[in-house]
């Protein structure tokens, strides 16, 4: 993984010292809250419902065991012993004290982490495929490009005060596991006309109150021009994006107001006028950064492990977990293992400091010192020998982390909602827990098959409800929490925005409504169909009938 050089260390340490001074000036009265607020936000510090919340960037979702242990330590020493992994592959601590934040930032700097640009109208943490350099359908490692974008966008003088926040995702595999179509810029590594790799560039995707699927601005961009092209997109956005209305300030609004053709024309004109050599990364620098991402040396293993096969035969719980949470690896004899943070009864995405330490230990023992955060709020050990998988399972089971529900109904994405968030209108965590209880039976989840259920506690859509096969949105209706249900969303290659199925439900009726929707899907599906296939074939009528027929 990328290691800070002298410049990086000095820069991050300077920022820690700067913020230490700013906190001191706030506490002494030299700065008012109005003056301090933008400074703390630039360092990822929000004032939420209960307390301060610190959002820590996990670049493209990659962590070393040392970093994960440091996060565990921070949770234990300065928070309440747990943190929350988010849909942007970041970690949030919910109970940090302002007076402690400078020390927390210093502790993060020790392990080459920070909170810079995790808030504010700037380029945020670049997200990616959690199975990078492990998945067997990968064309090229996206992390190299994420790191290049990270370095380029950090304190970029022209793009630090954009009309609104800006999110970029990069995927290097055949399957989109980074929801690229729902980002301001989505980058897909693809094979070009002459067999070389480049990017298909999507622009203007997003969630929030006005959801859009990103549109293709360029079918193929030679990868050496990534920075200059992204630079031109951001310049056109920075010039024309609205600053008069926060709800219309994202690039998706601009792209759709101008139309993709006109927007493309402006970007291409800017790009053609750009001195690309001044912006694009020199070849030797690209090679230098790429060298940090050399895959681990994986000792040769037998492609099939007999003990593992026997365990799958004899232990149904193990077999269920294996079927869902162990994914194929590009190296024979290896697998990627999903550590589910979705045990029924637990808050999706929350991990205790003990759990973080535990996963760090596992990564050292079995995982070649790598941990990834999935935007679906789980952790991943990307490189594990198949022969070690039973031992990993046994260890996880002992720690309550062996829930075999990856990509099943129990693997819900869920924002913090009104339990923590100042923007939320309704709770999401208790609803997710109630739904998880309703579908607790692993056999039922297996019968249903892969399905994405996403929930947000407000229209800002941090829980990606628009892209859920089943999406749940909490709203406040005259003081009562009400939940709108959308169907037919998808975050993948067939990206789509879910459609509202009908009137909302009171909190206590949501689990039953989800049950009805799932039953309707199962009754109507043809062999081999997933939820989206069935939904797209039969349309909303049977779902409406089942949900509201008696009304």
């Amino acid at each position, binding site marked *: 993984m990328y290691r800070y050089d002298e410049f990086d260390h000095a820069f991050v340490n300077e920022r820690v010292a700067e913020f230490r001074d700013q906190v001191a000036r*706030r*506490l002494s*009265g030299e700065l008012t*809250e109005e003056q301090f607020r933008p400074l703390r936000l630039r360092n990822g510090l929000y*004032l*939420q*419902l*209960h*307390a*301060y919340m610190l959002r820590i960037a996990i670049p493209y979702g990659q962590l070393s065991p040392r970093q994960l242990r440091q996060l565990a330590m921070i949770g234990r020493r300065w928070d*309440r*012993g*747990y943190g929350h992994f988010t849909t942007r592959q970041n970690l949030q601590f*919910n*109970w*940090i*004290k*302002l*007076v402690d934040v400078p020390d927390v930032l210093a502790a993060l700097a020790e392990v080459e982490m920070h909170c810079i640009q995790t808030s504010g109208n700037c380029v945020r943490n670049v997200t990616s495929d959690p199975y990078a350099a492990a998945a067997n359908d990968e064309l090229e490692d996206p992390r190299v490009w994420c790191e290049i974008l990270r370095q380029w966008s950090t304190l970029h003088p022209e793009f630090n005060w954009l009309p609104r926040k800006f999110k970029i995702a990069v995927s290097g595999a055949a399957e989109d596991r980074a929801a690229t179509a729902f980002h301001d810029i989505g980058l897909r590594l693809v094979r070009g006309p002459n067999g070389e790799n480049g990017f298909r560039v999507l622009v203007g995707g997003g969630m929030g109150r006005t959801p859009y699927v990103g549109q293709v601005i360029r079918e193929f961009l030679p990868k050496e021009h990534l920075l200059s092209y992204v630079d031109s997109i951001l310049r056109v956005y920075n010039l024309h994006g609205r600053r008069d209305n926060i709800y219309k300030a994202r690039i998706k609004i601009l792209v759709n107001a101008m139309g993709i053709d006109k927007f493309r024309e402006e970007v291409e004109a800017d790009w053609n006028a750009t001195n690309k050599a001044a912006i694009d990364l020199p070849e030797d620098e690209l090679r230098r950064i790429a060298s940090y991402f050399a895959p681990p040396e994986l000792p040769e293993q037998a492609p099939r492990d007999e003990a593992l096969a026997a365990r799958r035969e004899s232990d149904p719980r193990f077999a269920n977990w294996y079927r869902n949470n162990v994914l194929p690896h590009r190296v024979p004899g290896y697998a990627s293992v999903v550590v589910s943070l979705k045990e029924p*009864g*637990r*808050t999706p995405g*929350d991990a*205790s400091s003990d759990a973080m330490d535990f996963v760090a230990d596992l990564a050292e023992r079995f995982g070649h010192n790598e941990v990834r955060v999935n935007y679906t709020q789980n952790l991943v050990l990307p490189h594990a020998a198949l022969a070690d998988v039973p031992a990993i399972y046994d260890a996880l089971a002992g720690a309550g982390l062996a829930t075999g529900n990856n990509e099943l109904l129990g693997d819900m994405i869920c924002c913090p909602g*009104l*339990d*923590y968030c100042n923007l939320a209108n*309704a*709770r999401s*965590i*208790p*609803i997710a*827990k*109630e739904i998880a209880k309703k579908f607790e039976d692993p056999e039922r989840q297996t019968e249903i098959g892969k399905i994405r259920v996403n929930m947000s506690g407000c229209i800002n859509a941090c829980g990606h409800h628009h892209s859920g096969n089943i999406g749940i949105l909490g709203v406040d209706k005259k*003081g009562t*929490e009400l939940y709108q249900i959308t169907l037919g969303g998808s975050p993948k290659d067939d990206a789509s925005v879910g459609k509202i199925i009908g009137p909302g439900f009171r*909190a*206590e009726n949501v689990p039953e409504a989800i049950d009805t929707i799932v039953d309707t899907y199962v009754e109507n599906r043809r062999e081999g169909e997933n939820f989206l296939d069935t939904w797209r074939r039969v349309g909303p009528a049977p779902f409406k009938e089942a949900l509201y027929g008696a009304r």
Partner: protein
Amino acid sequence: MPSVVTANRLNDGIVVYLAPKGAWTESIADAARAETDDELKVLESAAEIAVQDRIVVGVYPMPIEIKEDGTVDPISVRERIRASHRTTLTEDWYDVPL
């Protein structure tokens, strides 16, 4: 309808309520209650001084109800959650009914 004044403490962000004699408390039960608009103005003035003194941020008044047993109901779900100071980590934590 009676009201109290709430805020977040500056140095740690924790939810607090203005108590009698200008103190701040984490317990809504101990908050100073205003029964009239004039009483609320007095509380808000005291809170404004606490903002200037850098004790709290984000001050606002909120209506409450006093139940028959004398306990304070913060009325809205949001304020019930704030008053509960609860975390979500443990399995069996939630006491604000759905």
